[in-house]
């Protein structure tokens, strides 16, 4: 009898709990449509994108007015050396802030000793390099180039939105290297580059720790044999690719890279 009573009590409790929960849920769900709500219009959509370099002309933002005619040709701008790749990831332990300040030791200032001929030569060489680098600095109209291949920015957004840890920087760098290498080798039949036909193919590429392509197969074909062949040829020619970082060696060997060939992305 006691047990039955307790069961009834329990099921009543459950029913009440259910009704109250439902009520709260309905209140929350319908609140934007209720007349007293002052927040129902304040829904904002946020889309996360990565802006590639130099595409302001296509985005309705005018290019900065130049005081004169441009000094370099489109072709010269393309030849300007690309910026060096980002420095390798910093190990975590080097980022540790020392807890104790080292005791200051006042050292006697050493007298400058005469420079050896080698040192003078080295200084001159460095100065020369510095000057050439200065000369090569990108001109203002650099921004008119639609997009730099090495920038790594894609319309899909940043490859990994949380690339803040050292491992992720390395990951992005590896992606950029692979992308540049395959792009270099991709000779698309000319017709496809000019047409607005959405040809897309996906290729899975498995890579051994030395960076060599050991297996590649189509995950998705474009429907055009010529397009698919050109993509597969690019993969074959690009081998050996960059040596994968330690953290990725297993992934690229077992799961592989997923390479999407999609010229339309450039135009969007």
């Amino acid at each position, binding site marked *: 009898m006691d047990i039955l009573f307790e069961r009834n009590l329990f099921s009543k409790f459950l029913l009440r709990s259910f009704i109250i929960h439902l009520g709260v849920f309905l209140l929350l769900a319908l609140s934007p449509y209720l007349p007293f709500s002052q927040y129902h219009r304040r829904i904002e959509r946020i889309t996360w994108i990565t802006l590639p370099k130099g595409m302001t002309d296509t985005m309705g933002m005018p290019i900065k007015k130049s005081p004169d*005619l441009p000094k370099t040709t489109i072709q010269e701008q393309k030849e300007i050396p690309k910026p060096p790749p980002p420095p390798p990831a910093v190990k975590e332990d080097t980022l540790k802030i020392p807890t104790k300040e080292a005791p200051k030791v006042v050292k006697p200032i050493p007298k400058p000793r005469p420079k050896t001929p080698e040192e003078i030569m080295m200084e001159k060489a460095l100065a020369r390099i510095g000057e050439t680098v200065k000369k090569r600095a990108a001109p203002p109209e650099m921004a008119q180039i639609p997009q730099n291949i090495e920038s790594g920015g894609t319309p899909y957004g940043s490859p990994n939105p949380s690339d803040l840890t050292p491992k992720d920087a390395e990951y992005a760098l590896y992606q950029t290297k692979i992308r540049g290498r395959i792009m270099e080798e991709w000779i698309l039949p000319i017709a496809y580059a000019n047409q607005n036909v959405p040809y897309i193919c996906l290729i899975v590429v498995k890579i051994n720790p030395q960076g060599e392509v050991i297996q590649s197969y189509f995950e998705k074909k474009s429907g055009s044999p*010529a397009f698919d062949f050109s993509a597969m040829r690019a993969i074959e020619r690009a081998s050996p690719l960059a040596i994968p970082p330690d953290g990725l060696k297993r992934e690229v060997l077992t799961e592989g890279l997923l390479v999407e060939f999609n010229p339309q992305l450039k135009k969007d």
Partner: protein
Amino acid sequence: MKKIFFIIFLLLLYSSPLLARVYIVIDEPSEKKFPIAITDLILLGENKDKEKWTSNLPDVLKKDLTLSGLFEIMESDIFPERDHYNVAPDRVQFSAWSLIGAQGLVKGSLEYANDRIIVELYLYDPFLGQKLVGRRYVAQPEEMRIVAHHFADEIMEVLTGERGIFSTKITFVSDATRNKEIYVMDIDGENHSRLTRDRSITLHPSWSPTGRWIAYTSFSNTGYPEIYVIDMKDKTQTRLTGNQTSNLSPTWKPGTNLITMASSRTQDTELYLIDLKGKIVSQLTRSFGIDLAPSWAPDGSAFAFASERAGRLHIFRADADGGNVRRLTFVGYHNDRPAWSPKGDKIVFQGRDQGAWDLFIMNTDGSNIQRLTAGQGNNESPYWAPNGRYIVYSSNQTGRNLIYIMKSDGSNQLAISAPGNCTQPSWSPYFK
């Protein structure tokens, strides 16, 4: 028992960490040129090939494709099939050609039949082992260049999806006879012929939208620059103006037989529209300061021109009736000879910078000015190919004025040879 299963399940879960594929997007092919192998033609039947068209015809083809800036012509010493006798699709060793990296392969045969030549030409894709184009031509020996240009057009059409421009022509001014006369040539600089014998100064030839006429300016009869047209059917010349003032830079309005010219008949130089009888249809500009060098948008809805109304010479645009004038260039101090692209999206013009003329390109609203030539003498008189991919212009970078062709991004600048100092080129439309 259940516990054991649960533990095994946990162990399995632990031993397979989630591995994701590294995702790579390739959204742009390289700028490498398309490697194409062009073999000599096989001579069938009796050997009457005095002019060596078996190699001359492929040479014309090679030059055309080089001018296009899209192809890398492969050297013949790495060709796998030495005798080239396998022309038919079922006999070509495609795997051998794809091994050397040829992405296109041109083969063909040539046969003399009475006074005519039968030429068969094929374009193959060695990787797919497919024939992309096959054509059979029956032509006179003197028409072999036309056959080559035609097949180059076919190659462009099938590989780019755009019509080739190799069968079009270029008209220009040359002083080869010491007088400036109008000439016409194939786009590879060959096959040139003189159209005028005015023994005077002729300037600014401009091809009509149908290709039937060429309008130009000549000082020959009146001693003043007047507008003339040549009928390309019978090569007759007709004078359209006779007002004994300056009548300059004739250009045709697309889709019409009307000519736009700059005339100083009312003291100031303004733009007028005249018909083929020389009658003024309308006056397009009325402003202080000279207006000249009109160039029409392909749909005829607007035109660009150079004007001094803002002090220095700059590029302006106006609607078809001459209204709604807008200034396009604000930089530089002497911008002249705008040419509106047949695709309608760009205007190329010559601008004076650091003491020399150079070519610049911009959007039709004047934004995004980019330089096409630099540090190579004077580069002048830009004019578009009918497909909007190439620009023809004159340059004196070698000391002598020559006609050059480049891609519209300024790459692949190649001189095409012709006698004398050659200037003021105008590209023909497609001939039907």
